């Protein structure tokens, strides 16, 4: 029945396209950066005299615009790049690859009055594209530029804690964010307990955040998508960039393998602060203790013809903690991290039909190996996916942009598999990995209906099957390898619509329904490397969520300013949490500690952004309320979620004083996080014991912070082959004491018959100044300068 409905909807969508049979031709090709040859995604292509006839380039920079036979002035535009206006005589299908030049300065970008700004024009809601050059100008904690921290500055996105890369979107849990790196799911996006993300800014081309109105193309998570694309590598000339920072250094090299046909990029980052500080531990009880993390990104691509292109991208990152105590002879090694590999084949069947086939592998692996004397202890957990997908982009005419495809993933989820030895004796918790198949097919169409209406409809049909080997905790039944244990299916419709009020403003509305089959519950204030992903099983049902959103979008002053107001309501079912008396028990399956309930979140988001000028940036404000309801927590009454934050304000500014000096500032303000307060104290075995009150029934003080940065480019000639700059930044410039956590310390003195208790607030980061040196070298520019380097 599910499949029949799906096909019926597909036919409904396709019929108006199939009957449309005028004499039309297609202009198609790729949009690229003139200097590097990198494809540009999300570029706008439209007819100057009739901006409604237009399209955007897809994730691979491909565009296709079908128009009636005729002559047109077509504009190719991309934010931060100079527009290109080309006369096109369309008498047959035409292939045209267009290279755009990055604006020397923002002011030089041509902004035409007719430019149909994407913010107002598209059906998309709650979607933001972040370009790395802008992100790199903002102040960063310890100098490490971090895209996941930048998205926390957008309305609707909340930081999970001081300095962390973890985030919550519109009241959704931390596991409800789909974080993709070149289509591969990144299951743990944090280094160093989440204080840094795994994304090395130098290797990243573009980041797209979708916090509402998730297109049917994406699935498997309820709250947001963070789609990170790695650079492809300069296919024209060799280039390098890097930096030396306080805690880590970076180096990226890229260049053509075969000029304008194939290229590579290799990027690495490693911390060294603790290696450098290792001498401080020499002679101490902790000699031999060390911590570091690193990231390696590599990507190659080759264009076989105008129709075929192959990409292979990989990521490998690890955090490694080696802990040693000399006195007690105790040591452990704790490595964890992600590995991803994505092989993609782009193929053009015709000027209107683009296909991408991807084979994706991703692995998150956590392990702990400890030993003392004749005792050893190992724990392992992780997620491994084998994923294959086929996606089509079909552009029948300028009124439709259809995407459809199929996606299959084989999951292997390893819980905390523990083994220990004591002398000759061995111990195990007997837990085994869980396996599952996840399949989805989807279709979506972005439909222009007359001059004012644009509608995006989509449907995703998903199916999830837990597979054996598995022993049912309910019936004791043994399932063989590959035997289905339980199957869940879901139809996930999404619709969003835009109504143009005038050239500068529009109204949008959308409804998105989704299912999520993998879950992660954290018992801490932020997610940890030890948190375990679990599949839907007999006990754990899929999470479901529906989101309603309405927005008003308006641009000012020829799109120099864009603004929006979005209001949303989100209802979440089958939510997971740990019970109130949860104890981390290595011997038990983690799902035995879960309790189940529901959640809701509603709020209003205000966004004002200035795109151009020496001073640019944005102001984002969110007014929201997020709560949860679990029969097993607070006797079933609603309670505020940990990340319920009534007010959340971000102000982000970049100012270019002159070519030598650029300044950045970030100010954030948020209502204090909720926490579970102490209710009272009592004695047991003469120790003072803390009895907690209702979950999340108290709040910390408001959080606010100002970060500042100044970037000095001593020789700011953009045509120089070698360029370097110094970035000076201060995190928490006015040294605000923002409570990170609360600690209760109790003491009893039986002899004296007295007792004392202390409640202590801890703040993590005082004002932290940092300096980073960055450089870039570009062979091509040297050539252009006739060797003036």
């Amino acid at each position, binding site marked *: 029945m599910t499949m029949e409905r799906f096909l019926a909807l597909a036919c409904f969508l396709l019929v108006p396209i199939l009957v449309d049979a005028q004499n039309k031709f297609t202009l198609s090709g790729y949009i690229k950066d003139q200097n590097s040859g990198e494809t540009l995604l999300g570029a706008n292509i439209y007819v100057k005299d009739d901006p409604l006839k237009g399209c955007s380039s897809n994730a691979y920079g491909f565009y296709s615009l079908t128009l009636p036979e005729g002559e047109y002035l077509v504009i190719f535009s991309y934010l931060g790049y100079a527009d290109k206006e080309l006369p096109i005589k369309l008498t047959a299908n035409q292939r045209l690859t267009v290279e755009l030049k990055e604006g020397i300065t923002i002011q030089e970008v041509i902004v035409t009055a007719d430019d149909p700004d994407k913010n107002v024009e598209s059906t998309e809601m709650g979607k933001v594209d972040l370009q790395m050059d802008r992100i790199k100008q903002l102040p960063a904690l310890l100098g490490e530029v971090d895209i996941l921290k930048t998205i926390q500055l957008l309305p609707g996105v909340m930081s999970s804690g001081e300095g962390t890369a973890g985030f919550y979107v519109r009241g959704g849990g931390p596991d409800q964010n789909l974080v993709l790196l070149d289509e591969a799911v990144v299951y743990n996006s944090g280094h160093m307990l989440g204080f840094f993300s795994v994304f090395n800014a130098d290797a990243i081309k573009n980041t797209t955040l979708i916090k509402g109105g998730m297109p049917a193309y994406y699935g498997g998570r309820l709250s947001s998508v963070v789609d990170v694309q790695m650079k492809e590598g300069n296919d024209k000339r060799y280039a390098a960039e890097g930096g030396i920072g306080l805690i880590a250094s970076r180096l990226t090299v890229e260049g053509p393998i075969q000029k304008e046909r194939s290229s590579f990029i290799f990027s690495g980052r490693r911390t060294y602060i603790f290696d450098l500080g290792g001498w401080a531990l020499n002679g101490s009880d902790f000699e031999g203790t060390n911590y570091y993390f690193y990231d390696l990104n590599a990507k190659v691509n080759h264009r076989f013809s105008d129709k075929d292109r192959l990409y292979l991208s990989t990521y490998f990152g690890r955090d490694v903690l080696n802990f040693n105590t000399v006195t007690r002879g105790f040591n452990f090694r704790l490595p964890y991290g992600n590995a991803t590999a994505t092989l993609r084949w782009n193929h053009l069947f015709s000027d209107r039909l683009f296909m991408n086939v991807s084979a994706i592998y991703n692995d998150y692996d956590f392990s702990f190996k400890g030993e003392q004397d004749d005792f050893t202890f190992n724990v392992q957990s992780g997620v491994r996916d084998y994923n294959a997908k086929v996606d089509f982009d079909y552009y029948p005419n300028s009124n439709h942009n259809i995407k459809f495809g199929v996606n299959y993933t084989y999951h292997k989820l390893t819980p905390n598999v523990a083994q220990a030895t004591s002398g000759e004796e061995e111990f195990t918790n007997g837990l085994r990995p869980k396996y599952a198949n996840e399949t989805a097919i989807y279709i979506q169409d972005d439909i222009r209906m007359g001059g004012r209406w644009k509608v995006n409809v989509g449907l995703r049909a998903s199916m999830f099957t837990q597979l054996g080997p598995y022993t049912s905790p309910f019936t004791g039944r043994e399932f063989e390898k590959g035997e289905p244990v339980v199957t869940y299916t879901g139809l996930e419709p999404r619709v969003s619509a835009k109504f143009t009020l005038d050239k500068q403003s529009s109204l949008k509305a959308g409804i998105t329904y989704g299912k999520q089959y993998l879950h992660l519950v954290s018992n801490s204030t932020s997610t940890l490397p030890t948190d375990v992903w679990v599949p839907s099983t007999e006990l754990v049902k899929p999470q479901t969520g529906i989101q309603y959103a309405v927005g008003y979008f308006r641009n000012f002053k020829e799109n120099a300013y864009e603004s929006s107001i979005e209001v949303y309501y989100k209802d979440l079912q089958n939510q997971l949490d740990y019970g109130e008396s949860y104890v981390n028990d290595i011997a038990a399956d983690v799902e035995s500690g879960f309790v189940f309930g529901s959640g809701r979140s509603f709020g209003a988001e205000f966004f004002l952004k200035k795109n151009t000028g020496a001073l640019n940036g944005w102001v984002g404000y969110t007014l929201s309320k997020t709560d949860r309801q679990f029969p097993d927590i607070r006797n079933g009454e609603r309670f505020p979620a940990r990340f319920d934050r009534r007010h959340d304000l971000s102000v982000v500014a970049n100012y270019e004083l002159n070519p030598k000096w650029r300044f950045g500032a970030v100010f954030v303000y948020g209502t204090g996080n909720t926490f579970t307060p102490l209710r009272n104290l009592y004695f047991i075995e*003469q120790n003072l014991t803390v009895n*907690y009150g209702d979950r999340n029934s108290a709040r910390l003080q408001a959080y606010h912070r100002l970060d500042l940065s100044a970037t000095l480019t001593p020789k700011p000639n953009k045509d120089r082959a070698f360029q370097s700059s110094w970035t000076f930044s201060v995190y928490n410039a006015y040294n605000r004491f923002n409570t990170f956590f609360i600690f209760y310390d*109790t003491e009893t003195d039986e002899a004296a018959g*007295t007792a*004392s208790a202390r409640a202590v607030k801890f703040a*993590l*980061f005082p004002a932290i100044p940092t300096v980073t040196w960055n450089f870039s070298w570009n062979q091509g520019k040297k050539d252009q300068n006739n060797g003036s380097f």
Partner: protein
Amino acid sequence: MRTFVLFLSICAVGFFLLSCEKEFIPEVANQPDQIVVEGYIEAGPSSLPPYIILTKTLPFFSAIGRETLNEIFLRDAQVSVEVDGESYEFEEICWTELDAAQRELLQQVLGQFGNIDDSVDFEFCLYIDPSFRLQGEVGKTYSLRIQTAEGQELRAQTSIPPHVGLDSLRFKVPAGEVPDTLKELRAFISDPSPQIDFYRYFTSTNGSPFLAPLGSVADDKLFDGQSFEFPLPQAETFDAEVDEFFGLYRVGDTVDIKWANIDQPHFDFWNTLEFNVFNQGPFSNYTRIQTNVEGGLGIWGGYSISFYTIVVE
């Protein structure tokens, strides 16, 4: 997983070093006092007679003295324990109301409370079976009923599981670079299968009161039916400073081990209480202590016990 908790604790220490701290007085919610039950019934050689201590919770305080502590005892409650259809009425006795002979007797019986010095004005009240007829027996279930002077009723139930004793104990030279005056205690046990066993232990040095360490309880999920040797660290109070020689024993001392089996609710209480102590800091959440007392907090717990004495050498 305790090791990982240790790792997180180390991280927490790292953050303590990085971070700055401020002491504060938490807002005290205007909520009524709760009643805390601490009562035990033991089976086995040298077992204590059953007793119940009733106290009241305290709002957050920075420091309290003897006078306030004297007032936390819940007086004049009706306490009874029922087993096999027979009910035993308990009576309240308070330290300051006893004569010298009674005090000596009580001190012997309740040696584990130690430090009860009759030279100071220290109040200590508990409820006991004055007939001393009620003795814990393995396999039996004991129902506790408390009626406070204000009419509040509390109930709890506990059972005494079969005892699984230790096979042997020995001291060994610890790993690492530890002075030769310190030794590690190892115990050998043969855990029976398939029953689920829950264990708890206490240590005493040179006749001091028995103390349970943080990490005093274990279930046998990881070692059901196995025979093996494991370390038994020396107990210290929860608030003791942890140094690098934590858990080791001093050569020449005489060590007493009290080894006990408990039922699951009793295990859950200590397990959540100890996790509650660990589970603070930047990467943690709160843990609500799981009580088996209906209408109050605390524990009514049965133990089947054995004692072992060994000299550190």
